[in-house]
């Protein structure tokens, strides 16, 4: 591994890893829900709202992960990511486009020379049910085609069976296969079910070398929820204190409107801290969210809503 932060004694053995993960303080679900509900009442107005909307646009990983994806579809997505609002070049670009590995080449071509990164899901996304060799080949394939970021899935089966070492090994191996590409580790929290599991999986991914921890594939309901993201933000906050390294968080799936995205930004601001309010450390994995952000942005700047026909559908 290229990083120097790991706690070697923790990740060396399955038993040590289990001791560490099960030694973390528990998570009280009712308390988390109360905290999330309390922060949802934050009233974000005027300049604060405009800042938030631009921030959210700049944090968006514009995503298409369909069996029906074509080069044409990906090209359109890239154009949208580079210039989300054709009528207003003050609107920031999205953070990245997120596609399947075979579409990475197309995406790289159409985002070349821009700030927009290419993210690729890999490791037998979304189920992750393949051999490690296949997963690593999938990853290397995407990196070779020009992916800047890899969104891998953890082996939820292994996690739920308590084989934490196996989960960690796959993350370590994938991180190696990434080379210079950033690694986002998808926990698929909808399948982990409990917030205690979310906290353990977050730490497991962080210790194994993740650059980002990500909630969901978007293929399982529930996808991102605010209680889950709160627990993940607590994990990266606490990990910084322990390792002096800031890990990012990506909330993916189910975030469709600007208001909801601002509620997430409040969580980022007040749980992890304002240092995390950057696309380098927080992302939204979304598709339809972007147009609502653009529409609310215009409303905030002009005082009037334009109709949906004024925003591009890609």
């Amino acid at each position, binding site marked *: 591994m290229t990083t120097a932060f790991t706690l070697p004694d923790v990740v060396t053995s399955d038993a040590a890893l289990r001791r560490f993960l099960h030694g973390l*303080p528990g998570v009280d679900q*009712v*308390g988390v829900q109360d905290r999330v509900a309390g922060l949802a009442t934050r009233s*974000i*107005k005027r300049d604060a709202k405009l800042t938030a909307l631009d921030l959210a646009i700049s944090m968006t990983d514009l995503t298409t992960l369909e069996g029906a994806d074509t080069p044409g579809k990906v090209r359109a997505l890239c154009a949208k990511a580079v210039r989300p609002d054709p009528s207003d070049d003050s609107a920031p670009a999205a953070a990245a486009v997120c596609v399947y590995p075979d579409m990475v080449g197309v995406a790289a071509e159409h985002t070349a020379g821009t700030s927009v990164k290419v993210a690729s899901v890999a490791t037998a996304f979304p189920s992750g049910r393949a051999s490690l060799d296949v997963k690593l080949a999938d990853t290397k394939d995407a990196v070779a085609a020009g992916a800047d970021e890899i969104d891998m899935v953890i082996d939820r089966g292994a996690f739920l069976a308590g084989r934490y070492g196996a989960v960690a090994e796959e993350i370590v191996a994938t991180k190696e296969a990434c080379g210079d590409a950033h690694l986002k580790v998808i926990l698929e929290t909808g399948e982990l079910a409990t917030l205690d599991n979310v906290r353990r999986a977050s730490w497991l991914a962080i210790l194994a070398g993740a650059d980002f921890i990500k909630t969901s594939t978007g293929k399982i309901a529930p996808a991102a929820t605010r209680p889950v993201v709160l627990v993940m933000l607590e994990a990266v906050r606490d990990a910084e204190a322990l390792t002096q390294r800031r890990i990012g968080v990506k909330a993916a799936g189910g975030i469709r409107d600007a208001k909801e995205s601002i509620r997430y930004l409040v969580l980022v601001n007040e749980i992890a801290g304002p240092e995390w*309010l950057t696309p380098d450390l927080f992302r939204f994995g979304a598709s339809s969210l972007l147009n609502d952000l653009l529409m609310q942005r215009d409303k905030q700047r002009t005082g009037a809503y334009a109709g949906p026909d004024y925003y591009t559908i890609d």
Partner: protein
Amino acid sequence: MTSTWEYAPAPESRDVVDLRSEYGLFIDGDFVEPHGGGTFKTVNPATEEVLAAVGEADAEDVDRAVAAARRAQTEVWGPMSDAERAKYLYRLARVIQERARELAVLETLDNGKPIKESRDVDVPTAAAHYFSYAGWADKLAHAGFGSDPQPLGVAGQIIPWNFPFLMAAWKVAPALATGNTCVLKPAETTPLSALLLAEILQQIDLPPGVVNIVTGAGGTGQALVEHPGLDKIAFTGSTSVGKQIQRALAGRPTKLTLELGGKAANVIFDDAALDQAVEGIVNGIFFNQGHVCCAGSRLLVQESVLEPVMDRLKRRLGTLRIGDPLDKNTDLGAINSAEQLARITELTDSGDAQGAQRWQPECQLPDRGYWFAPTVFTGVSQSHRIAREEIFGPVLSVLTFRTPDEAVTKANNTPYGLSAGVWTEKGSRILWTAERLRAGVVWANTFNRFDPTSPFGGYQESGFGREGGRHGLAPYLAT
């Protein structure tokens, strides 16, 4: 991209409140001039702005109010069918919901508490209380007090300034549901929401005299306590005034319930869910600026987790937003009065003098008004005044323990006994601890949670009698 994100001011509008410059007393269904013509001013503690002049009731006014209440009880409210009384209470609860924003803004103006609390706690919890007791009104025969429980008659009710509208609900709802009438005296620093309640009582056509509201300071309260025409007195406030009332009632048949002070222990075991426990600590002592009789003012932390708990707590307190109570993003509002601020200051100074370590987050307090920064004292011993006396402000005293037995011993080592909190992920430890804690309410993995169906009240110097739920009916019934 910028990494600073300041929340823009988001003040709730004052326009929903129709503030009058003067208020009279509410007696026999009408607002009337006080007999002596005296008034006092109520101010916004966040700005020191005078909000209104309010009538000061003297013994003559109190006598008029008690007479009106007696007449209403014997002629109208007592003979009325249970189901009819319930209808009035349901109507009251609904109108409170309809006028919730107005009530919340007025409460925040007069009290200094953040609008998010008056809006999300005080007013909805008050409405819930009226709804809950409306439901009891026609079921008294099945509540366990015999087949035909009778009201006591007329109740004198004295309420504090920390939750003015909610405490009025705690008093008025059970009294009315059981067929009593009442004379309510709000605190002198926060009379306005009770006077808006009076307007709402007019709006719902509550028969005159069923609820009378006499505003004033200690003298008014004393006149009420000394009035021989009362069948019951219910008081919520300080332990010292509670003792005076009990002395005044000695030898009289008047029934009494007292809900007084507290010095609650919030016990954090080493296996607690620490992040949520920290939220519980914050909610326990900084909710309503710590102006809460059941506040978790003594933090008892197992020594083995003191450091992570304090680290998290300090980080969390750095995010508290202090200032304009009408701003929807404000977490901590103003201290209710100059007098209370002086008391908090005096007690915290004693903490410094006795050797505890004071910590406060960096925060900017407004220039005008009464303010006190959130404060944590570490290195506190049981023998320090700040561990013994009720501060009634945003001040937390942190103590440690080594074993569950020691936690219980320290928690119970207080003349008070209103509430306590237990934080552990172990269910058996919750039960073990809760059955040993001498407190009227024990919260497990939460704090300051109020429900109209749950009885509330204390041990020892925290008072006696229960309010809320089925138990809250008993003090108003001749059983």
